[in-house]
């Protein structure tokens, strides 16, 4: 039994993926839902896809244990390499330099300790940053060759009060719509919007915490973070 449903997105696979990811417009959702109420083919595909998402969410830790272990090991290796590199640099320096650096490090430790105490509440709750997303923010401009998508606001790391409007502004050389995602401090997606202008005011109220955002085009992506106090 084949499905002959004609949609704007001719590929039903893309349609199902977009439906589950919450990327369809209200009208597209209504069309698609009305369709799969009648179409066995599409509903079966949708059901399997939904179960795939559920299985990965529920059993992903076991199913992908090898990858997770490997990724953790890679992270450790990276930090070990950095430590080794540092120790090599130290060997080449004379003692006077080392004393100076040690003093600077001591001052730094004291300063970090002070910062930790003053920001303890932030770091312990919804403000704990995602290591992966932080790394992405640091490396995003090194990875991308093209720079067609330019963010004007909010500046990365900005802190808003709960009542302050969060306005996104960007410059993009193409006219195609973009996807704006708001993620929580662990990187789980909270909201997703299709945006077509060069400005967008986030319409929801957020609780205190650290949030990340991603602005994606077909070819490019920008990521940043902001905090709500």
């Amino acid at each position, binding site marked *: 039994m084949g499905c002959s449903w004609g949609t704007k997105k001719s590929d039903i696979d893309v349609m199902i993926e977009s439906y589950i990811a919450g990327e369809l417009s209200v009208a597209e959702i209504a069309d698609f839902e009305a369709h799969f*109420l009648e179409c066995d083919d599409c509903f079966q595909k949708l059901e399997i896809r939904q179960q*795939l998402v559920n299985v990965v969410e529920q059993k*992903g830790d076991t199913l992908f244990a090898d990858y997770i272990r490997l990724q953790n090991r890679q992270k450790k290796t990276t930090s070990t390499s950095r430590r080794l590199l540092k120790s090599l640099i130290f060997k080449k320096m004379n003692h006077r330099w080392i004393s100076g650096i040690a003093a600077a490090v001591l001052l730094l430790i004291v300063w970090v300790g002070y910062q930790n105490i003053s920001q303890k509440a932030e770091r312990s709750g919804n403000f704990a940053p995602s290591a992966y997303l932080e790394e992405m923010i640091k490396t995003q401009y090194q990875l991308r060759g093209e720079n067609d998508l330019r963010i004007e606001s909010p500046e990365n790391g900005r802190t808003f009060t709960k009542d302050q409007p969060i306005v996104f502004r960007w410059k993009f050389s193409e006219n195609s719509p973009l996807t704006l995602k708001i993620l929580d401090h662990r990187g789980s997606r909270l909201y997703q919007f299709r945006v077509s202008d060069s400005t967008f005011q986030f319409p929801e109220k957020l609780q205190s915490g650290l949030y990340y955002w991603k602005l994606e085009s077909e070819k490019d992506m920008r990521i940043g973070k902001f905090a709500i106090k």
Partner: protein
Amino acid sequence: MKPLDEKKLIQQIKNNDEAGLNRFFAYFYQRTFQIVSHKLGNPLKNRQDCEDLASEIIWEGIVKIQSGGFDPEKGRLSQYMYGIINNSCKNFFKKSKNRAEKRFSDYRHSVDGVDPQMIMENNISLIELQQKAEKEKEREIQTFISRAIEKMDEKYKKLIYLKYYEKLSYQEISSREDIPVKKVKSRLFDARRKLEIIISKMLNSETNISV
């Protein structure tokens, strides 16, 4: 699943025929649950709410059909059910606290000649039985998917991991794995296709046995 013979099904439901009610439930419950869970949010977190609402919608559909609320000459059954689903979801958000009582009393006044209390009592065990069967089917599908993922070729499995576990976009996977976005999409498409074939075989064999 066989396509619905609507007129026959409507007649069976009006006669309170168990086979017809079973068929109606089997066809619409999972679809309704899917739409409801999509509208209510994460089905893993709101599962009980989604199940309850889907059951209520099915029950509402049965009551309305039995009271002559649906006219097959004016439209298709799926369209009629979709209307009920949409209204029920809107009501769920509006008055979730006293939803069950209010809706039940609505029927008591609006349905002529049919005692909703009796229909509810007759059908409630049927719905519970069908729900159990659906959950069993869902568990089987999940087991098959888990096994299929375990046996999957590494190049597919890795992408499933990145897409659905790490929740990366195609663009991010492309950067991380150093393969073009098109390749990421086509490999994921192939991976999902393989899963669909496995599960379709399973579902179809199950349908052939039960129908």
